[in-house]
């Protein structure tokens, strides 16, 4: 907490816990309790009660309270912003010194790296949205994999969306798989577009025969590979999974002039920016309709906890680490600028536009 942080002055009495009273051993209350056979340090209640195994500290002394006068979320720490950095590198060593086994250390390390990577990706490019396309079973595309039909019935729209942020871990891992849902309705997107997309996704279902089913093993693997998000990694994934699931669920042509609502703004912009960027870079999205859900779990340091939960297949513990999942306010100042740059880049990539700018008649 720096000098600028809110000061919280509080006047305390000489004895805020009133230990004077609690140390007084000849109060009336103590006298009565002792006369009935109580000794300091004992529980009240039946002697040798069989249910005593459930007793907690609250049965021995009053419940301690903490005055919470902010809206900091559960588990968040106030000084998160300027916590000692660079410790990551030593976590391995520190963990070993603390007697953790190599496997757990590996896992923790991996989690940390995943978080870092996804944070990076999110900050740099934003997230990308995919649309549910069904499961390839044998050579037919089905709505759900057989074993999960029941669970999956609860979705109704056939569009899935990539959600930023939401690395919603789920406690029941595979249960969730084929959650279909409407695309995140963003203020920027008009409805007909959305509906078109829906149609598209349906169509895709029929013509996405190309999808290769790699269900079983892949699922497990993807559990681990959540939040993977660099191009190279995507490439990786593709190569290990199915080379031919290149389909058009990438919505490259997102509306450019999105009007933002303040809240969602940030996220949206980021998304757009990223999209623009990707469009300019590759023009082809690599998302595959099967594994998109997993890929989707890139997270986003800034995005709110997105309720567009991707089926959460990870039972991995949430990485503890840096950052909040609500946007860090400071990053917003770069938004306008980066958007501007993105637009410029896009313009440069588009020869027609360039020609127009330089007033070249072709």
């Amino acid at each position: 907490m720096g000098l600028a942080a809110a000061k919280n002055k509080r006047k305390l009495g000489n004895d805020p816990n009133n230990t004077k009273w609690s140390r007084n051993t000849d109060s009336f209350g103590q006298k009565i309790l002792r006369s009935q056979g109580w000794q300091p340090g004992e529980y009240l209640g039946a002697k040798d009660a069989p249910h005593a195994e459930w007793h907690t500290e609250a049965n021995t002394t009053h419940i301690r309270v903490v005055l919470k006068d902010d809206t900091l979320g559960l588990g968040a720490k106030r000084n998160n912003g300027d916590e000692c950095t660079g410790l990551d590198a030593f976590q391995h060593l520190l963990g070993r010194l603390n007697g953790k086994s190599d496997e757990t250390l590996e896992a923790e390390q991996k989690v940390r790296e995943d978080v870092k990577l996804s944070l990076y990706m999110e900050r740099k490019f934003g997230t990308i949205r995919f649309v549910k396309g069904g499961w390839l079973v044998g050579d037919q595309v089905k709505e759900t994999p057989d074993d999960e039909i029941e669970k999956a019935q609860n979705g109704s729209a056939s569009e899935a969306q990539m959600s930023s942020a939401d690395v919603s871990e789920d406690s029941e891992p595979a249960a969730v798989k084929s959650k279909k849902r409407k695309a995140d309705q963003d203020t920027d997107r008009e409805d007909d577009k959305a509906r078109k997309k829906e149609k598209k996704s349906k169509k895709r279902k029929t013509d996405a025969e190309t999808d290769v089913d790699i269900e079983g093993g892949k699922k497990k693997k993807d559990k681990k590979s959540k939040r993977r998000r660099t191009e190279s990694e995507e490439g990786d994934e593709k190569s290990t999974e199915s080379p031919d699931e290149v389909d058009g669920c990438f919505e490259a042509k997102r509306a450019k002039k999105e009007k933002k609502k303040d809240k969602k703004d940030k996220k949206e912009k980021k998304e757009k920016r990223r999209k623009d960027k990707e469009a300019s870079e590759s023009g082809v999205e690599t998302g595959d309709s099967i594994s998109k859900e997993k890929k989707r779990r890139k997270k986003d340091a800034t995005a709110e906890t997105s309720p567009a939960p991707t089926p959460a297949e990870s039972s991995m513990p949430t990485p503890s680490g840096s950052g909040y999942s609500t946007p860090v306010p400071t990053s917003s100042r770069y938004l306008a600028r980066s958007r501007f740059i993105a637009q410029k880049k896009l313009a440069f990539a588009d020869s027609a536009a360039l020609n127009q700018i330089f007033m070249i008649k072709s």
Partner: protein
Amino acid sequence: MADSNKNLKRSSAEREGTQDYKRMKTNGDGDAMDAKPNPYLAHLDEDFSSPLDDFERHKTTALQASKAEDSDNNPWTGRPHSQQYFKILKTRRDLPVQKQRQEFLDAYHSTQILVFVGETGSGKTTQIPQYVLYDELPHQTGKLIACTQPRRVAAMSVAQRVADELDVNLGEEVGYSIRFENRTGPKTLLKYMTDGQLLREAMHDHDMSRYGCIILDEAHERTLATDILMALLKQIAERRKDLKIIVMSATLDAQKFQTYFFEAPLLAVPGRTHPVEIFYTPEPERDYVEAAVRTVLQIHASEPEGDVLLFLTGEEEIEDACRRISLEVDDMIRESDAGPMTVYPLYGTLPPHQQQRIFDKAPDALRKGGRPGRKCIVATNIAETSLTIDGIVYVVDPGFSKQKIYNPRTRVESLLVSPISKASAQQRAGRAGRTRPGKCFRLYTENAFKKELIEQTYPEILRSNLANTVLELKKLGVEDLVHFDLMDPPAPETMMRALEELNYLACLDDDGELTTLGGMASEFPLDPALAVMLISAPEFYCSNEILSITSLLSVPQIWVRPNNARKRADEMKQQFAHPDGDHLTLLNAYHAYKGAEQSGEDVKKWCHEHFLSFRHLSSADNVRAQLKRIMETHGIELVSTPFQNKEYYTNIRRALLAGFFMQVAMRESANSKVYKTVKDDQLVMIHPGTVVTSPYDWVVYNEFVLTTKQYVRTVTNIRPEWLLEIAPNYYDVDTFEKGEIKSALTRITEKIRRRQAMKGGR
């Protein structure tokens, strides 16, 4: 019109009250009554052939019972069944619990104490008591079946429902009894009641001899009264082997209940719930309110149809979130094709008609074929257990709630935002799966869920001031407080503090035995301090006024202060303000209210204009009538000082001290706003809601709370001389620690002595 209504209500309240009194009387000689056949039930022996004739108590089967239920005539009344009955019967047969009726009966026959676990939606609250009814056959034995509920509303509404299901009139075969209302009759066989009510009955009937079977419902909520009842029933079960006990709970801690009740057998019935998918955030949230609002909006934007339930902690937070969500949704609709969403707040102090609105249907799509509308309810943890709202598919849980926790050392009651428990989080999530598979969005990490949340919410007994409880226990004949077998024994310090307070109030003598005053105080459904104040009020010639003040302090705040009219509300309050303090201001408002009522004004309108809560004032009126009756039965005089007498208000202020001499604070220094509580030396401020403006040196306060700061609420100016005179025991200067308070008190003692010496000298 309103006036006559009012009178009607009052007279009916009085009638019920008398019943109450009679019932208490009969309780006393309940044993004698049980010996001979119950004359009130004689009509059942008349010779219509009842399907129950060949039933043998504790040997019935589910088949027999369902045959009896199917018959044309009602086995309980002899009247033919209505059409409605068969309709309801059909739906009843679909309840999950019905499938296990035989299993239940077998278990019930095999044991004295049964732990029954049924998830929400299993139908246990309505069905199990009826199954027991068909097996226990109370019309033969004359012993009733009692089913306790933690909440008054639940007791009333469930009793009505079961009366409908059995095709009988509420108040006859099926009735209910809650603190200020008793709807049972001589024919009553099955009685729903609040747990507190059963406890009060037990004070006069230590063996609960009126009952053949006692069902403790919602035991997992662990209210103070339920906890004490459990310990009590454990004792009674040893003495009365014929008494059957069923403890009904939600799944989570059933094992604890089993262990507690001598390894009682367990019967579990699955509920009718759908799976709920749980989502955590990857990282902790910086601002949980902000995150909650966004999550709701995102659900609205991207999730299929279904209503949203958001849990927040307090009134202000909820109203604020509601406003923000509504604004954003309006924007969303303007900018794109979002569906409509209505947002409802829900918290305890909200007037009932507004609470009722949460059951309204979600709005329709804006145009045909458009996106469906939904409703969003922003609630405190009242929606966690107390209320079931159908149609909820999405739950947003930031992981906090406000909890009342009492600290026996400083005697402060804190009402603070704190993390919920795991059990509570699961309960919240479960709310999403009532109608179809749902989703729960937790605004914290899975790690936080595992590591930062406690397993179970602390039961009330660990969080409360136990003065009242100890008094009740004494009255219930519990001598050994140390080894009283509670499921969760309270901290020894809490118990000590309660004993000490009761001793100073002279409710317990120096050996810890109940005094006459204590016995009388326990008759009042009030905190001991209030009860003692009421009982000693005639000595100060103002028992009428103290009675009014007591009733006003036993209901929620009567002052209404809407956000959009705070200033006017404060001005109105100033009209009633008495310079000496809040207690007297309350009294003024009450007198004005009664005056308006008598002059035939439309009281509701009058209250609205004066920013007073009609609901709470009229319930204070009701409480007053109840308390008055108790006072009359105990021969406590109702007197007043004439209003013209200049001692009128002084007497009242002195009378306040008779109960609240332990809740006094002295100003720390001149010009300071900080006060110090007597003996505990805690620094406090006067709550900003007070009317007291001039800084008095000594005040008596009604509550000491910790919210954002340590506050004393509802304060009145007093003179320190009175303290020495009214509570010489407590204000024995020698027992005080060195400090400002001690020196102030010494000065005053000196002054009094000198004055007396002067008088003697003359």
